[in-house]
């Protein structure tokens, strides 16, 4: 399925109304992350029809409903206390200690990752942008450091179960016009340094994602498989 610019408003409306077939809906949900015009059209369609929902009289909900919600909430890391989750750092809250903890905030400072000694390799260059990639549940899965000189480090922070004859592939979206570009594949689902493409200098809020592709990578130079993790870059400061 290829989305022509002229079709975007109609597709966005039908998406919001729930009229798309399952495959079309899945396509829109994936495309929405990289297609700014589509995202805007969906946001607008949502607002247009929202009064049909907000005009509805509220019903009395079961008294137990909030308890059912709150008992199932996973903890979220608190950005104001980035190192509290780490017992060693918490016990030794001294800036000058041997700990080299770097807090990276991703997506509007929502998720903060404390990175300790495991990632203290020396580098001659600093990355231009860093993207923290999360899965659908909002759990941190990987970090991409893009150096802007056609080199990026991809750090996996969880074990990915990659089926036989499949490969993890890293992508970025330099611009809507350019579309998603491959940074390379991760052999054996391990952290890696990827090199050798030629792309514009990475920018703040640029999208990075990892998808599951057929062995050796997507044959069509576009992501085709499910998204394992994604996130927006922040300029390294």
């Amino acid at each position, binding site marked *: 399925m290829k989305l022509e610019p002229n079709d975007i408003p109609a597709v966005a409306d039908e998406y919001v109304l729930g009229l798309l077939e399952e495959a079309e809906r899945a396509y829109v949900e994936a495309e929405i992350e990289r297609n700014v015009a589509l995202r805007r059209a969906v946001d607008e369609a949502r607002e247009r029809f929202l009064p*049909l*929902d907000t*005009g509805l*009289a509220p019903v009395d*909900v079961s008294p137990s409903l909030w308890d059912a*919600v709150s008992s199932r909430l996973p903890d979220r890391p608190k950005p104001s206390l980035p190192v509290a989750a780490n017992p060693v750092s918490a016990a030794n809250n001294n800036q000058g200690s041997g700990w080299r903890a770097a807090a990276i905030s991703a997506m509007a400072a929502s998720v903060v990752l404390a990175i300790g000694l495991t990632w203290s390799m020396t580098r001659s260059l600093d990355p231009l942008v860093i993207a923290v990639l999360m899965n659908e549940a909002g759990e941190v899965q990987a970090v991409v450091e893009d150096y802007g000189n056609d080199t990026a480090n991809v750090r996996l922070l969880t074990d990915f179960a990659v089926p036989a004859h499949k490969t993890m592939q890293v992508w970025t979206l330099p611009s809507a016009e350019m579309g998603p570009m491959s940074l390379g594949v991760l052999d054996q689902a391990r952290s890696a340094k990827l090199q050798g493409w030629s792309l514009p200098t990475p920018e703040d809020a640029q999208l990075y994602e990892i998808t599951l592709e057929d062995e050796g990578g997507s044959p069509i130079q576009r992501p085709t498989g499910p998204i394992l993790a994604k996130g927006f870059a922040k300029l390294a400061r």
Partner: protein
Amino acid sequence: MASVTDQSTDLEAALADCANGDRDGLKRIFDQEAGRLVAVAQRILRRRELAEEVVQESFIRIWTHSHQYSPGRGSARGWIYSIVRNRALNLLRDGRREDLVGDDQVEALQDSDQLNEIMAAWHTLDRNSRLHECLNGLEEIRRRGILMAYVGGYTHGEIAGRLRLPLGTAKSWIRRGLSSLRECMA
């Protein structure tokens, strides 16, 4: 109008609190919107317990995905409602609607109730609102099709059946109705 704006600013702030790990933010959204969200889900799913199940799941998703909301992406309220709507529609599409109705008579009865409720959604819109005015300007059958989809969660096929139209005709009428609506509200 001021209260609407305040409400939506409240929701934005509450989502930001959620993203910071503050459960009180989620509770505020719940207190303000849960009753209406259950009503929205129930209008699609017909059954209260399914509607509450959907709202429960949705609040967990609101919590885990709150960092993805940004004010640049439409209203906080629209974002919250879309989560509930999508979950309710998914549940419906997974074939649960069949579980809800036993025989044809019950189905017909529920259907007419639901169709009344769907049209009521339009009638209760603020008369001076743009949406009301623009829906009012549509041909009756196109308006019905659009409302059946958005309010009741009906598919193209279900709409075609209830409006007694061939599927292709129903699809193109709805499409044209949506196009007129966009122009009218632009």
